[in-house]
């Protein structure tokens, strides 16, 4: 049976036969880089379109429907429009930091692609501290936001950046603690180990109550960390025009926008890997026949299906919950989520030691 893992292995073998090892490695690097860039572009196009369509159907309207069949090429048109727009740098801004900020946002989003297991044996870098790597790199994103807000020399931008800094930094704690609950159950930080440990069932189901609490806190924290509604205080349109990217226009604005959507994808991919089994098909304990049927669905489909389900969930939140005030937001994290996730971690440890999980 063919799979993405086999394809990469055969391409690797063919390159090493035809060219010298150094040249083959270089060609592989170029292929990986091109694939990462194209994944970025495709994700941007698909997620923006999905966002608009989901919001439209939630409000009982049709959404974009003019460009292409069912409005499929709407985001292409938007991209071309953004390319043709003038990229303005305000006179009073710190020009170097102003131009550097979107590049850093893209770099931090791109680096997070490395440890994600997209399909069986299809992972760029299966490092032994995968989960720690993710939480380390994802906190770089806040630097780009603060940089953008500060360098714009605009009060709205500065306020938005400060708010979003406080918010991302706070919710990182409960996100980290809920991830740790799963790490305790698995006993490894490696992404492939975490996926392999879910062969008999996903952690959401076999981890009992601690895994469920961790999943809920993780989803809340993920929504807050990607600055999505109901936690979109950083760019609360009605009070701050656009928050930290008020002064950005043209391609640099597009880069921020893209980085935001790719961050949503990555956070959901991490959530799917930890709680919903990553590329692992839906397996139930000893039901061999059922498990064999499930194995016929390709692993990449499982991964993207779960990830897009979580993305849909986050888009759904936007139209369900009203926006929080900044003090409510910080109260929610520091007075509720953080103590809950700390005690949940202890509970998960007790269950892991007792061996109560399946």
């Amino acid at each position, binding site marked *: 049976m063919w799979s993405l893992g086999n394809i990469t292995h055969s391409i690797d073998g063919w390159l090493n036969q035809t060219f010298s090892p150094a040249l083959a490695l270089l060609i*592989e*690097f170029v292929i990986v*880089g*091109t694939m*990462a*860039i194209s994944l970025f572009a495709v994700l941007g196009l698909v997620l923006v379109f999905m966002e608009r369509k989901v919001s439209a159907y939630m409000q009982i309207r049709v959404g974009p429907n003019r460009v292409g069949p069912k409005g499929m090429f709407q985001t292409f048109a938007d991209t071309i429009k953004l*390319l*043709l*727009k*003038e*990229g303005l740098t*305000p*006179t*009073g801004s710190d020009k170097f930091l102003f*131009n550097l900020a*979107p*590049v850093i946002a*893209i*770099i931090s989003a*791109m*680096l997070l692609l*490395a440890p994600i297991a997209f399909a069986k044996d299809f992972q*760029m*870098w299966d*490092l032994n501290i995968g*989960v*720690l790597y993710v*939480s380390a790199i994802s906190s770089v994103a806040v630097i780009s936001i603060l940089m953008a807000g*500060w360098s*714009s*020399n*605009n*009060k*709205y931008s*500065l306020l938005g950046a400060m708010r979003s800094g406080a918010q991302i930094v706070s919710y*990182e*704690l409960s996100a*980290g*603690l809920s991830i*740790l609950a799963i*790490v*305790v159950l698995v*006993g490894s*930080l490696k992404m492939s180990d975490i996926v392999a440990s879910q062969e008999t069932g996903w952690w959401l189901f076999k981890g009992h109550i601690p895994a469920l609490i961790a999943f809920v806190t993780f989803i809340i924290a993920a929504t807050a960390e990607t600055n999505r509604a109901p936690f979109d205080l950083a760019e609360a349109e009605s009070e701050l*025009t656009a928050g930290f990217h008020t002064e950005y226009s*043209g*391609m640099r604005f*597009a*880069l921020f926008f893209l980085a935001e959507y790719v961050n949503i994808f990555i956070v959901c991919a991490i959530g799917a890997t930890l709680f919903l089994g990553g590329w692992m098909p839906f397996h139930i304990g000893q039901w061999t026949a059922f498990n064999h049927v499930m194995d016929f669905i390709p692993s990449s489909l499982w991964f993207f299906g779960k990830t897009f389900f979580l993305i849909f969930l986050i888009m759904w939140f936007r139209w369900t919950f009203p926006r929080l005030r*900044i003090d409510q937001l*910080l*109260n929610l994290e*520091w*007075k509720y989520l*953080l103590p809950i996730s*700390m005690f949940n*971690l202890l509970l998960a*440890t*007790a269950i892991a*030691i007792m061996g109560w999980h399946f």
Partner: protein
Amino acid sequence: MGSASMIVLIISAIVFAVGGILVSKLLFKKHNSVVKGEAYECGVPTVGKSWVQFNVGYYLFALIFLIFDVELVFLYPWAVVAKSVGWLALVEIIIFMFILFVGFLYAHKKGALKWM
């Protein structure tokens, strides 16, 4: 691919971001004017600089965050071995978390978590 993937990804991110900005620079026509370069604050003329002292509330949260973030870093190696070490690991981390929690309660009592 190993750690080289980090370098590959950084390079491709720079190519993507800088390439995009440069391509769009070729495509658009630049029109300069004084008003256009001003900060956009809903049409009202800007008053004073933006680079001023800021509300201390944000820094208080940043300080508390630092304490808990360091705690989180300590928890990562613990989490990996907790299952194999057994009950001793749980007791140790309860003592560790208890000390932190007392500090957290102190900060709460002093009003560091209250907004404004």
